[in-house]
Every structure is written in structure tokens, then in C-alpha cells.
């Protein structure tokens, strides 16, 4: 039987015409539209990091540098080349760090109390930044 004959088959055609299309539930279209609305609401709240990756890197670099400088950079105030902090001494070669800071012409004298305060402040700032970032991530999940 040729294709034309299949097509012209009036009986089969009439069966399909009489059977007609099936009908989905009355809520069919509404459900789709509601899903789209919900989807667009979700996409309006897509998570974007408060602090971008690059900013994090810069903050981390300065934080670690300052932290290292406060811990090790002022070692020369103590005993020789070693690190001397609150009575505990550690023989660490701090020349590299000092070299870095001398290159950027950044040198100042700070008291142990100020040093402790700055370390605490750096720690506090960093831990709060991390907590804030994690909380904002979980909020958008």
C-alpha cells in the first residue's frame, strides 16, 4: 500500500477524527503560568556573593600581610632575628617579610598593646566577614 493510500484511508482518518484530541485538566494552563511566575520570583533572588572573589583575595592578602607583619615584622624589637612575643621566642627568619615591607616603604613602630589590639581587630573582622558571607549564602539557598 502506498503512502497516498494510507493517507486517503477514510476509515482510519475518521477514527482519529472521531476519537479527537484528549483534554487535560481545567487547571492545566493555570499550573504552567503559576510555575512560571514562581520561577521568575526565584530568579529575582538569585544569590550573588556580597563580596566578590577578587575582593576576597585582596582582603586576604592585606589581612595576612598585616597579620604577618605584626607577628614577625617587629621581631627586631625583640631578640635578634627571632620572634619574640609576650615572653615566647621563636627563631624565624623574618628578613623576607621585612624585605617586603621595606620595599613598599612601610615602616612604623607600634607598642605591644596596639599590636594585640590590631591582631584582635583583624581576627574579629575576618571572622565576621566569613560568617556574614556564609549566612547570606544559606539565606539564598
Amino acid at each position, binding site marked *: *500500500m502506498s503512502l497516498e493510500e*494510507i493517507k486517503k484511508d477514510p476509515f*482510519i482518518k475518521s477514527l482519529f477524527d472521531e476519537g479527537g484530541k484528549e483534554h487535560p485538566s481545567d487547571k*492545566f*494552563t493555570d499550573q*504552567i*503560568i503559576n510555575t512560571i511566575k514562581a*520561577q521568575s520570583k526565584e530568579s529575582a533572588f538569585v544569590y550573588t556573593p556580597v563580596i566578590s572573589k577578587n575582593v576576597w583575595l585582596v582582603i586576604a592578602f592585606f589581612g595576612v600581610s598585616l597579620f604577618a607583619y605584626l607577628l614577625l615584622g617587629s621581631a627586631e624589637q625583640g631578640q635578634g632575628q627571632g620572634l619574640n612575643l609576650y615572653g615566647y621566642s621563636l627563631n624565624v627568619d623574618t628578613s623576607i617579610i621585612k624585605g617586603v615591607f621595606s620595599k613598599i616603604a612601610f615602616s612604623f613602630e607600634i607598642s605591644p598593646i596596639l599590636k594585640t589590639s590590631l591582631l584582635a581587630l583583624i581576627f574579629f573582622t575576618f571572622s565576621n566577614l566569613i560568617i556574614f558571607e556564609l549566612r547570606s549564602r544559606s539565606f539564598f539557598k
Partner: protein
Amino acid sequence: MNYREDNFYISKVLQGNLSSFAILVEKHKGMAYTLALRIAKNQEDAEEIAQDAFMKVYNSLSTFKQDSKFTTWLYKIIYNTAISRFRKKHIDSYSMEESSMADSVHEQDDDGLDILHHQERKRIISMAISRLKEDEGVAMTLFYLNENSIKEIEEITGFTDSNIKILLFRGRKKLLFELKKILKDEIVDMI
């Protein structure tokens, strides 16, 4: 309701008009659901498949080339969504000669159906169509009900020209066989 051309609604949807998409869904939901039902074989799954497909259509409408036929694209998405849920079955090779049996039952079924009421006839026909294999059901529905060409069915299903012809032959035979069987059962039940 008198609908306008699909491209009219598509342009509106792309401009952010959601109610135009609702009209587009209303316009095509019947055929979309029918195709999904041919594969899913149950109403719940068919409705889910059709809804999923419409969501895919909405989300990728910007990629649709408006110079091509929207319904072909839509039915392709419906078909692929349905098939990805229900594993695609291999089309068995079918001998064209086997269709001769189907022709012999034509007359009897026609007479049997004539004496039934419209609703009853519709129920029996739908039952017989639902007993077709998934791919046969899709090919027959697109060809006979929606009057798609073989080329369009090729685009929608991804089958070759000869595969579609085989599906149509096989579908015809199966449909007539099932119809005869249902009518026999109904008569036996009546007696």
C-alpha cells in the same frame, strides 16, 4: 476562541507578556497532551509531561527561529520529554505484506461502530488508540489527526521516512485489530 498566528503570541511572550503564553498553551494544549498521552499511557504522567514541555518551551522561546513552524518545535519537545521519561523502544522491522490482514477487518468494524452512540464510539476508539505502541500512537496521531506530513513527523520524532511508514502500517493493523477485539468484548458483555 479564534486564535491568531503563533508568531504573534511568541513575539508578545518575548516582550514579557505572560498572558500571551497562556493563550499559546490554551491553543496547543490539546494536541500536546494527546501526544504525551500516547507515550505515557496515563493521564497524570501525560499532564506532567505536557506541562514540563511547555515550561521548556517558555524557557527557550528566545532560541526558537520564528521562520520555522512552532508546532513542529513544540511537538518535538513534547516527544523528547515523554521519551526521556519512558525509555525509547526499538522499532521492530515490519513486513509490509502483513498489513493485508488489517484490510479484511475494515468492513466489519465500520458496521459495528455505526450502531453505537457517539460517546460510546468515542470511548471505544480512544481505548483502541491507547492500546497502540507508543511510537505507533505518536506517528498515527500526528499523521491522521493532526495531518502532519511524513517530513514533519521525521523532524518531531527523529525517525527515518521508512520507519514512519512502517509505524503507520503497523499502527493501522493494530488499531483495527484492537477495535475488533473491543467490539467483540462489548457485544459479549451486552449478551
